[in-house]
Protein backbone atom coordinates (compact mmCIF):
# COMPACT_ATOMS: atom_id res chain seq x y z
CA UNK A 1 0.00 0.00 0.00
CA UNK A 2 1.51 3.25 -1.16
CA UNK A 3 2.19 6.16 1.11
CA UNK A 4 0.01 9.22 0.66
CA UNK A 5 2.45 12.00 -0.09
CA UNK A 6 -0.24 14.64 -0.37
CA UNK A 7 -3.72 14.52 1.14
CA UNK A 8 -6.62 16.83 0.74
CA UNK A 9 -9.52 16.70 3.15
CA UNK A 10 -12.75 18.54 2.57
CA UNK A 11 -11.18 21.25 0.43
CA UNK A 12 -13.65 23.99 -0.37
CA UNK A 13 -13.20 27.20 -2.31
CA UNK A 14 -15.94 29.76 -2.62
CA UNK A 15 -16.02 32.87 -4.75
CA UNK A 16 -18.70 35.03 -3.25
CA UNK A 17 -21.54 32.64 -2.70
CA UNK A 18 -20.47 30.24 -5.41
CA UNK A 19 -18.49 27.14 -4.48
CA UNK A 20 -16.02 26.40 -7.25
CA UNK A 21 -14.67 23.50 -5.25
CA UNK A 22 -16.88 21.82 -2.65
CA UNK A 23 -15.65 19.38 -0.07
CA UNK A 24 -13.10 17.54 -2.17
CA UNK A 25 -11.13 14.80 -0.50
CA UNK A 26 -8.39 12.78 -2.15
CA UNK A 27 -4.98 11.26 -1.54
CA UNK A 28 -2.04 11.43 -3.85
CA UNK A 29 0.15 8.36 -3.41
CA UNK A 30 3.87 8.62 -3.78
CA UNK A 31 5.04 7.59 -7.23
CA UNK A 32 1.62 7.50 -8.84
CA UNK A 33 0.09 9.47 -11.68
CA UNK A 34 -3.36 10.69 -10.74
CA UNK A 35 -5.51 11.87 -13.61
CA UNK A 36 -7.94 14.69 -12.85
CA UNK A 37 -10.79 15.07 -15.29
CA UNK A 38 -14.11 16.81 -15.38
CA UNK A 39 -16.17 19.15 -17.55
CA UNK A 40 -15.04 22.70 -18.10
CA UNK A 41 -15.89 24.70 -15.03
CA UNK A 42 -15.88 21.72 -12.69
CA UNK A 43 -13.16 23.19 -10.52
CA UNK A 44 -10.04 21.31 -11.60
CA UNK A 45 -7.75 24.30 -11.97
CA UNK A 46 -9.25 25.93 -8.90
CA UNK A 47 -8.49 22.79 -6.93
CA UNK A 48 -4.87 22.88 -8.06
CA UNK A 49 -4.72 26.59 -7.26
CA UNK A 50 -5.94 25.96 -3.73
CA UNK A 51 -3.69 22.95 -3.13
CA UNK A 52 -0.59 24.80 -4.35
CA UNK A 53 -1.35 27.94 -2.39
CA UNK A 54 -2.16 30.23 -5.28
CA UNK A 55 -5.57 30.78 -3.74
CA UNK A 56 -6.52 30.54 -0.06
CA UNK A 57 -8.92 27.72 0.79
CA UNK A 58 -12.31 28.62 2.13
CA UNK A 59 -12.40 25.38 4.01
CA UNK A 60 -10.63 22.06 4.42
CA UNK A 61 -7.03 21.09 4.75
CA UNK A 62 -4.18 19.90 2.59
CA UNK A 63 -1.17 18.09 3.97
CA UNK A 64 2.07 17.37 2.17
CA UNK A 65 4.67 14.94 3.51
CA UNK A 66 3.00 15.24 6.85
CA UNK A 67 3.03 19.02 7.13
CA UNK A 68 0.09 21.33 6.61
CA UNK A 69 0.13 22.99 3.21
CA UNK A 70 -3.01 25.09 3.54
CA UNK A 71 -2.32 28.55 4.82
CA UNK A 72 1.24 28.71 3.54
CA UNK A 73 2.16 31.60 1.24
CA UNK A 74 2.39 30.68 -2.41
CA UNK A 75 6.17 30.72 -2.67
CA UNK A 76 6.55 28.47 0.35
CA UNK A 77 4.65 25.69 -1.37
CA UNK A 78 7.08 25.72 -4.28
CA UNK A 79 9.98 25.61 -1.86
CA UNK A 80 8.54 22.60 -0.09
CA UNK A 81 8.55 20.63 -3.30
CA UNK A 82 5.14 21.03 -4.93
CA UNK A 83 5.30 22.53 -8.42
CA UNK A 84 2.74 23.15 -11.10
CA UNK A 85 2.36 24.31 -14.67
CA UNK A 86 -0.24 26.80 -15.79
CA UNK A 87 -3.03 26.07 -18.22
CA UNK A 88 -2.19 29.22 -20.13
CA UNK A 89 1.57 29.10 -20.11
CA UNK A 90 3.39 31.97 -18.40
CA UNK A 91 6.80 32.33 -20.00
CA UNK A 92 9.24 35.02 -18.93
CA UNK A 93 9.17 36.58 -22.35
CA UNK A 94 12.23 38.76 -22.22
CA UNK A 95 14.50 35.98 -21.04
CA UNK A 96 15.97 33.13 -22.99
CA UNK A 97 14.72 29.57 -22.59
CA UNK A 98 17.61 28.52 -20.35
CA UNK A 99 17.20 31.66 -18.23
CA UNK A 100 13.53 30.83 -17.80
CA UNK A 101 14.42 27.39 -16.53
CA UNK A 102 17.19 28.81 -14.35
CA UNK A 103 14.60 30.68 -12.33
CA UNK A 104 13.12 27.32 -11.42
CA UNK A 105 16.53 26.01 -10.45
CA UNK A 106 17.33 29.11 -8.42
CA UNK A 107 14.17 29.24 -6.38
CA UNK A 108 12.76 25.76 -6.28
CA UNK A 109 12.64 23.11 -3.64
CA UNK A 110 14.56 23.84 -0.47
CA UNK A 111 15.27 27.34 -1.68
CA UNK A 112 17.02 26.27 -4.86
CA UNK A 113 20.56 26.76 -6.08
CA UNK A 114 22.41 29.73 -4.67
CA UNK A 115 24.71 30.61 -7.54
CA UNK A 116 24.03 31.19 -11.19
CA UNK A 117 26.52 28.71 -12.54
CA UNK A 118 24.99 25.76 -10.69
CA UNK A 119 21.56 26.94 -11.69
CA UNK A 120 22.56 27.14 -15.32
CA UNK A 121 24.00 23.64 -15.25
CA UNK A 122 20.85 22.28 -13.65
CA UNK A 123 18.72 24.15 -16.17
CA UNK A 124 20.68 22.72 -19.07
CA UNK A 125 20.22 19.22 -17.68
CA UNK A 126 16.48 19.68 -17.44
CA UNK A 127 16.33 21.12 -20.95
CA UNK A 128 18.18 18.07 -22.25
CA UNK A 129 15.69 15.85 -20.40
CA UNK A 130 12.72 17.50 -22.10
CA UNK A 131 14.58 17.63 -25.43
CA UNK A 132 14.56 21.41 -25.61
CA UNK A 133 18.30 21.94 -25.20
CA UNK A 134 18.72 22.90 -28.84
CA UNK A 135 16.68 26.01 -28.06
CA UNK A 136 18.43 26.90 -24.82
CA UNK A 137 19.57 30.35 -25.87
CA UNK A 138 16.55 31.22 -27.95
CA UNK A 139 14.32 34.01 -26.64
CA UNK A 140 11.28 32.58 -24.92
CA UNK A 141 9.02 34.65 -27.15
CA UNK A 142 10.12 32.84 -30.27
CA UNK A 143 8.97 29.35 -29.29
CA UNK A 144 6.08 27.56 -30.93
CA UNK A 145 3.20 26.02 -28.99
CA UNK A 146 4.68 22.58 -28.20
CA UNK A 147 8.03 24.15 -27.29
CA UNK A 148 6.37 26.64 -24.99
CA UNK A 149 4.60 23.82 -23.20
CA UNK A 150 7.85 21.94 -22.78
CA UNK A 151 9.59 25.01 -21.43
CA UNK A 152 6.79 25.49 -18.92
CA UNK A 153 7.28 21.88 -17.90
CA UNK A 154 11.06 22.28 -17.73
CA UNK A 155 10.72 25.28 -15.47
CA UNK A 156 8.58 23.32 -13.04
CA UNK A 157 10.96 20.34 -13.19
CA UNK A 158 13.97 22.54 -12.50
CA UNK A 159 12.43 23.22 -9.11
CA UNK A 160 13.22 19.59 -8.23
CA UNK A 161 9.68 18.92 -7.03
CA UNK A 162 8.44 15.82 -5.30
CA UNK A 163 4.94 16.49 -6.58
CA UNK A 164 4.24 18.00 -9.97
CA UNK A 165 0.79 19.14 -11.07
CA UNK A 166 0.24 19.53 -14.80
CA UNK A 167 -2.66 21.63 -16.03
CA UNK A 168 -3.68 20.67 -19.57
CA UNK A 169 -0.20 20.45 -21.01
CA UNK A 170 -1.54 18.59 -24.04
CA UNK A 171 -3.95 21.26 -25.24
CA UNK A 172 -3.08 22.27 -28.76
CA UNK A 173 -0.76 19.34 -29.48
CA UNK A 174 -1.23 17.04 -32.45
CA UNK A 175 -1.34 13.23 -32.01
CA UNK A 176 2.41 12.74 -32.51
CA UNK A 177 3.22 15.49 -30.04
CA UNK A 178 0.75 14.01 -27.58
CA UNK A 179 2.51 10.66 -27.77
CA UNK A 180 5.83 12.33 -27.12
CA UNK A 181 4.39 14.24 -24.18
CA UNK A 182 2.98 11.05 -22.68
CA UNK A 183 6.41 9.41 -22.92
CA UNK A 184 8.01 12.42 -21.29
CA UNK A 185 5.56 12.39 -18.42
CA UNK A 186 6.22 8.71 -17.85
CA UNK A 187 9.94 9.42 -17.70
CA UNK A 188 9.26 12.14 -15.15
CA UNK A 189 7.42 9.62 -13.05
CA UNK A 190 10.33 7.20 -13.42
CA UNK A 191 12.53 9.84 -11.86
CA UNK A 192 10.52 9.52 -8.69
CA UNK A 193 8.18 12.48 -9.07
CA UNK A 194 4.52 12.06 -8.16
CA UNK A 195 2.17 13.55 -10.72
CA UNK A 196 -1.32 14.97 -10.85
CA UNK A 197 -2.41 15.50 -14.43
CA UNK A 198 -5.40 17.56 -15.55
CA UNK A 199 -6.29 16.68 -19.12
CA UNK A 200 -9.07 16.61 -21.66
CA UNK A 201 -7.13 14.47 -24.10
CA UNK A 202 -8.59 11.10 -23.21
CA UNK A 203 -5.93 9.09 -24.99
CA UNK A 204 -3.32 10.64 -22.74
CA UNK A 205 -5.33 10.20 -19.56
CA UNK A 206 -5.95 6.55 -20.38
CA UNK A 207 -2.26 5.91 -21.04
CA UNK A 208 -0.90 7.79 -18.10
CA UNK A 209 -3.15 7.49 -15.10
CA UNK A 210 -2.79 4.92 -12.39
CA UNK A 211 -6.01 6.29 -10.96
CA UNK A 212 -8.49 8.91 -12.11
CA UNK A 213 -10.39 11.45 -10.05
CA UNK A 214 -13.49 12.98 -11.64
CA UNK A 215 -14.80 16.37 -10.61
CA UNK A 216 -18.27 17.64 -11.45
CA UNK A 217 -19.57 21.02 -10.35
CA UNK A 218 -16.74 21.29 -7.85
CA UNK A 219 -17.44 17.96 -6.18
CA UNK A 220 -15.91 14.53 -6.48
CA UNK A 221 -18.05 12.44 -8.79
CA UNK A 222 -15.99 9.30 -8.59
CA UNK A 223 -12.47 8.02 -8.24
CA UNK A 224 -10.74 4.81 -9.20
CA UNK A 225 -8.93 2.80 -11.85
CA UNK A 226 -9.17 4.18 -15.40
CA UNK A 227 -11.01 1.15 -16.70
CA UNK A 228 -13.77 1.59 -14.12
CA UNK A 229 -14.01 5.36 -14.17
CA UNK A 230 -14.07 5.80 -17.95
CA UNK A 231 -16.83 3.26 -18.31
CA UNK A 232 -18.91 4.65 -15.46
CA UNK A 233 -22.16 5.88 -16.99
CA UNK A 234 -22.24 8.93 -14.78
CA UNK A 235 -18.85 9.93 -16.14
CA UNK A 236 -19.96 9.29 -19.70
CA UNK A 237 -23.05 11.38 -19.17
CA UNK A 238 -21.31 14.23 -17.39
CA UNK A 239 -18.00 14.36 -19.16
CA UNK A 240 -17.22 11.97 -21.97
CA UNK A 241 -20.33 12.53 -23.99
CA UNK A 242 -22.06 10.61 -26.66
CA UNK A 243 -19.42 10.90 -29.40
CA UNK A 244 -16.71 9.47 -27.18
CA UNK A 245 -18.92 6.58 -26.16
CA UNK A 246 -19.74 5.88 -29.81
CA UNK A 247 -16.11 6.00 -30.82
CA UNK A 248 -15.18 3.72 -27.94
CA UNK A 249 -17.76 1.18 -29.03
CA UNK A 250 -16.62 1.35 -32.66
Amino acid at each position, binding site marked *: MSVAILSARGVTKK*FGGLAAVADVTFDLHEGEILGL*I*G*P*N*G*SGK*TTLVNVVTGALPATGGEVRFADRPLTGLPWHEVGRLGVSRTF*QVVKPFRNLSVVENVMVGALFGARGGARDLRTARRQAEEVLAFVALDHRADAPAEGL*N*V*PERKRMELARALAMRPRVLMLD*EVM*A*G*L*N*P*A*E*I*DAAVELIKRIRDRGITLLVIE*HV*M*KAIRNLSDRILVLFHGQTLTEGAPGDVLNDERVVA*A*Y*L*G*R*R*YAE*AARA
Partner: protein
Amino acid sequence: MLEVRQLSAGYGAMQILRDVTLSVPAGEIVTLVGSNGAGKSTLLNTVCGIIKPVGGRVLLDGTDITGRASEAIVALGITQVPEGRRLFPTMTVRDNLILGAYRRRDAKAIAHDLAWVYELFPILEERQRQAAGSMSGGEQQMCAIGRGLMARPRLLILDELSLGLAPIMLDTLVDALTKVHHEGMTIFLVEQDVATAFDLATTGYVLENGRVVLSGPTSELRADSHVKKAYLGL
Protein backbone atom coordinates in the same frame (compact mmCIF):
# COMPACT_ATOMS: atom_id res chain seq x y z
CA MET B 1 -19.10 31.49 -51.14
CA LEU B 2 -15.47 31.74 -50.12
CA GLU B 3 -12.85 30.81 -52.63
CA VAL B 4 -9.14 30.72 -52.15
CA ARG B 5 -7.10 30.33 -55.35
CA GLN B 6 -3.42 29.46 -55.32
CA LEU B 7 -2.76 31.51 -52.28
CA SER B 8 0.82 31.99 -51.17
CA ALA B 9 1.59 33.99 -48.06
CA GLY B 10 3.94 34.29 -45.16
CA TYR B 11 5.63 36.64 -42.75
CA GLY B 12 8.47 38.64 -44.18
CA ALA B 13 11.09 36.28 -45.55
CA MET B 14 9.34 33.20 -44.23
CA GLN B 15 6.86 31.77 -46.70
CA ILE B 16 4.27 29.60 -45.03
CA LEU B 17 1.47 29.00 -47.52
CA ARG B 18 2.20 27.63 -50.94
CA ASP B 19 -0.40 27.61 -53.67
CA VAL B 20 -3.37 26.86 -51.46
CA THR B 21 -6.67 26.37 -53.21
CA LEU B 22 -9.92 25.62 -51.45
CA SER B 23 -13.55 26.56 -51.59
CA VAL B 24 -16.35 26.92 -49.08
CA PRO B 25 -19.69 26.66 -50.91
CA ALA B 26 -22.60 28.60 -49.49
CA GLY B 27 -24.58 26.73 -46.87
CA GLU B 28 -21.96 24.08 -46.19
CA ILE B 29 -19.56 23.25 -43.42
CA VAL B 30 -16.02 22.89 -44.69
CA THR B 31 -13.01 22.11 -42.58
CA LEU B 32 -9.30 22.66 -42.92
CA VAL B 33 -7.23 20.40 -40.73
CA GLY B 34 -3.54 20.27 -40.03
CA SER B 35 -0.98 20.32 -37.26
CA ASN B 36 0.66 23.20 -35.47
CA GLY B 37 2.80 25.09 -37.88
CA ALA B 38 1.04 23.74 -40.96
CA GLY B 39 -0.15 27.22 -41.82
CA LYS B 40 -3.77 27.24 -40.74
CA SER B 41 -3.53 30.52 -38.83
CA THR B 42 -1.58 32.08 -41.65
CA LEU B 43 -4.37 31.14 -44.04
CA LEU B 44 -7.00 32.69 -41.83
CA ASN B 45 -4.93 35.80 -41.31
CA THR B 46 -4.59 36.17 -45.05
CA VAL B 47 -8.27 35.59 -45.76
CA CYS B 48 -9.26 38.11 -43.10
CA GLY B 49 -6.90 40.77 -44.36
CA ILE B 50 -4.43 40.78 -41.51
CA ILE B 51 -1.55 39.86 -43.78
CA LYS B 52 -1.23 40.46 -47.49
CA PRO B 53 -0.52 37.45 -49.69
CA VAL B 54 2.41 37.34 -52.07
CA GLY B 55 0.42 35.43 -54.65
CA GLY B 56 -3.07 34.13 -55.41
CA ARG B 57 -6.53 35.50 -54.69
CA VAL B 58 -9.30 35.38 -52.13
CA LEU B 59 -12.85 35.71 -53.45
CA LEU B 60 -16.09 36.19 -51.61
CA ASP B 61 -19.13 35.41 -53.76
CA GLY B 62 -17.03 36.07 -56.80
CA THR B 63 -15.74 39.46 -55.63
CA ASP B 64 -12.01 39.74 -55.21
CA ILE B 65 -11.26 40.66 -51.62
CA THR B 66 -7.55 39.85 -51.68
CA GLY B 67 -5.55 42.16 -49.49
CA ARG B 68 -8.47 44.27 -48.34
CA ALA B 69 -8.40 45.69 -44.82
CA SER B 70 -9.85 43.50 -42.08
CA GLU B 71 -12.61 45.95 -41.21
CA ALA B 72 -13.78 45.86 -44.80
CA ILE B 73 -13.82 42.09 -44.84
CA VAL B 74 -15.83 41.94 -41.62
CA ALA B 75 -18.25 44.40 -43.14
CA LEU B 76 -18.76 42.00 -46.04
CA GLY B 77 -20.07 39.40 -43.65
CA ILE B 78 -17.14 37.26 -42.59
CA THR B 79 -16.81 36.77 -38.85
CA GLN B 80 -14.01 34.86 -37.24
CA VAL B 81 -14.10 33.24 -33.82
CA PRO B 82 -10.39 33.43 -33.03
CA GLU B 83 -8.21 30.81 -31.46
CA GLY B 84 -8.06 31.24 -27.72
CA ARG B 85 -11.41 32.98 -27.63
CA ARG B 86 -10.16 36.52 -27.04
CA LEU B 87 -13.17 37.56 -25.03
CA PHE B 88 -13.25 40.86 -23.16
CA PRO B 89 -12.55 39.36 -19.76
CA THR B 90 -13.76 42.12 -17.48
CA MET B 91 -17.00 42.64 -19.36
CA THR B 92 -20.08 40.55 -18.67
CA VAL B 93 -21.06 37.62 -20.83
CA ARG B 94 -24.04 39.58 -22.06
CA ASP B 95 -21.91 42.58 -23.00
CA ASN B 96 -19.49 40.37 -24.86
CA LEU B 97 -22.35 38.88 -26.84
CA ILE B 98 -23.92 42.22 -27.60
CA LEU B 99 -20.58 43.54 -28.75
CA GLY B 100 -20.61 40.83 -31.36
CA ALA B 101 -23.46 42.74 -33.00
CA TYR B 102 -21.44 45.94 -32.97
CA ARG B 103 -21.84 46.64 -36.65
CA ARG B 104 -25.57 46.04 -36.73
CA ARG B 105 -28.27 48.61 -36.23
CA ASP B 106 -31.45 46.52 -36.14
CA ALA B 107 -32.13 46.48 -32.37
CA LYS B 108 -35.07 44.13 -32.52
CA ALA B 109 -33.24 41.55 -34.59
CA ILE B 110 -30.26 41.82 -32.26
CA ALA B 111 -32.45 41.07 -29.26
CA HIS B 112 -33.94 38.15 -31.15
CA ASP B 113 -30.50 36.80 -31.95
CA LEU B 114 -29.42 37.14 -28.34
CA ALA B 115 -32.34 34.95 -27.33
CA TRP B 116 -31.27 32.53 -30.07
CA VAL B 117 -27.74 32.33 -28.70
CA TYR B 118 -29.09 31.76 -25.20
CA GLU B 119 -31.18 28.94 -26.57
CA LEU B 120 -28.15 27.32 -28.15
CA PHE B 121 -26.08 27.76 -25.03
CA PRO B 122 -28.33 27.94 -21.97
CA ILE B 123 -25.35 28.24 -19.62
CA LEU B 124 -24.60 31.62 -21.14
CA GLU B 125 -28.00 32.92 -20.13
CA GLU B 126 -27.38 31.63 -16.64
CA ARG B 127 -24.04 33.41 -16.48
CA GLN B 128 -24.99 36.49 -18.43
CA ARG B 129 -24.05 38.95 -15.71
CA GLN B 130 -20.83 37.23 -14.85
CA ALA B 131 -17.47 38.56 -15.99
CA ALA B 132 -16.56 36.61 -19.11
CA GLY B 133 -13.02 36.02 -17.94
CA SER B 134 -14.16 34.25 -14.80
CA MET B 135 -15.78 31.40 -16.68
CA SER B 136 -14.11 28.16 -17.50
CA GLY B 137 -12.51 27.47 -20.86
CA GLY B 138 -15.46 25.67 -22.37
CA GLU B 139 -17.95 28.29 -21.26
CA GLN B 140 -15.71 30.96 -22.72
CA GLN B 141 -15.61 29.06 -25.97
CA MET B 142 -19.40 29.05 -26.08
CA CYS B 143 -19.41 32.75 -25.39
CA ALA B 144 -16.91 33.36 -28.16
CA ILE B 145 -18.99 31.41 -30.64
CA GLY B 146 -22.11 33.19 -29.45
CA ARG B 147 -20.38 36.49 -29.98
CA GLY B 148 -19.48 35.43 -33.50
CA LEU B 149 -23.06 34.42 -34.22
CA MET B 150 -24.36 37.76 -32.96
CA ALA B 151 -22.77 39.39 -35.97
CA ARG B 152 -25.17 37.40 -38.17
CA PRO B 153 -22.32 36.63 -40.53
CA ARG B 154 -22.71 35.12 -43.92
CA LEU B 155 -19.60 33.08 -43.27
CA LEU B 156 -18.57 31.98 -39.80
CA ILE B 157 -14.93 31.02 -39.43
CA LEU B 158 -13.95 29.02 -36.35
CA ASP B 159 -10.30 28.75 -35.39
CA GLU B 160 -9.37 25.83 -33.13
CA LEU B 161 -12.80 25.30 -31.75
CA SER B 162 -11.87 22.35 -29.62
CA LEU B 163 -8.88 23.75 -27.78
CA GLY B 164 -8.95 22.77 -24.13
CA LEU B 165 -12.50 21.51 -24.14
CA ALA B 166 -13.92 18.51 -22.31
CA PRO B 167 -15.29 15.82 -24.63
CA ILE B 168 -18.84 16.49 -23.54
CA MET B 169 -18.42 20.17 -24.23
CA LEU B 170 -17.43 19.31 -27.75
CA ASP B 171 -20.69 17.39 -28.05
CA THR B 172 -22.59 20.53 -27.07
CA LEU B 173 -20.69 22.63 -29.56
CA VAL B 174 -21.02 20.13 -32.36
CA ASP B 175 -24.77 19.98 -31.74
CA ALA B 176 -25.05 23.76 -31.60
CA LEU B 177 -23.08 24.25 -34.77
CA THR B 178 -25.05 21.58 -36.57
CA LYS B 179 -28.24 23.40 -35.60
CA VAL B 180 -26.84 26.72 -36.76
CA HIS B 181 -25.81 25.14 -40.01
CA HIS B 182 -29.28 23.76 -40.61
CA GLU B 183 -30.59 27.27 -40.30
CA GLY B 184 -28.44 28.21 -43.26
CA MET B 185 -25.11 29.40 -41.90
CA THR B 186 -21.98 28.70 -43.90
CA ILE B 187 -19.16 27.53 -41.65
CA PHE B 188 -15.44 27.24 -42.23
CA LEU B 189 -13.80 25.27 -39.48
CA VAL B 190 -10.06 25.32 -38.97
CA GLU B 191 -9.14 22.53 -36.60
CA GLN B 192 -6.52 20.35 -35.12
CA ASP B 193 -8.96 17.89 -33.60
CA VAL B 194 -9.58 16.02 -36.80
CA ALA B 195 -12.19 13.68 -35.36
CA THR B 196 -14.45 16.53 -34.31
CA ALA B 197 -13.81 18.40 -37.53
CA PHE B 198 -14.85 15.43 -39.64
CA ASP B 199 -17.96 14.93 -37.49
CA LEU B 200 -19.12 18.40 -38.36
CA ALA B 201 -17.93 19.06 -41.89
CA THR B 202 -18.98 17.53 -45.19
CA THR B 203 -15.86 18.56 -47.08
CA GLY B 204 -12.34 18.63 -45.76
CA TYR B 205 -8.89 19.88 -46.74
CA VAL B 206 -5.70 18.68 -45.13
CA LEU B 207 -2.89 21.21 -44.85
CA GLU B 208 0.71 20.12 -44.36
CA ASN B 209 3.71 22.43 -44.52
CA GLY B 210 1.66 25.10 -46.18
CA ARG B 211 0.23 22.91 -48.94
CA VAL B 212 -3.09 21.21 -49.38
CA VAL B 213 -2.14 17.54 -49.55
CA LEU B 214 -5.59 15.98 -49.46
CA SER B 215 -9.12 17.10 -50.00
CA GLY B 216 -12.55 15.65 -50.48
CA PRO B 217 -15.66 14.52 -48.64
CA THR B 218 -14.92 13.94 -45.00
CA SER B 219 -16.46 10.51 -45.17
CA GLU B 220 -13.67 9.52 -47.53
CA LEU B 221 -10.92 11.39 -45.75
CA ARG B 222 -11.78 9.58 -42.54
CA ALA B 223 -10.89 6.31 -44.17
CA ASP B 224 -7.67 7.52 -45.74
CA SER B 225 -4.72 5.66 -44.23
CA HIS B 226 -2.42 8.68 -43.99
CA VAL B 227 -5.10 10.69 -42.24
CA LYS B 228 -5.84 7.86 -39.88
CA LYS B 229 -2.23 7.45 -38.90
CA ALA B 230 -1.12 11.05 -38.67
CA TYR B 231 -4.22 12.76 -37.39
CA LEU B 232 -6.55 10.27 -35.82
CA GLY B 233 -3.82 8.43 -33.96
CA LEU B 234 -5.15 5.09 -35.08
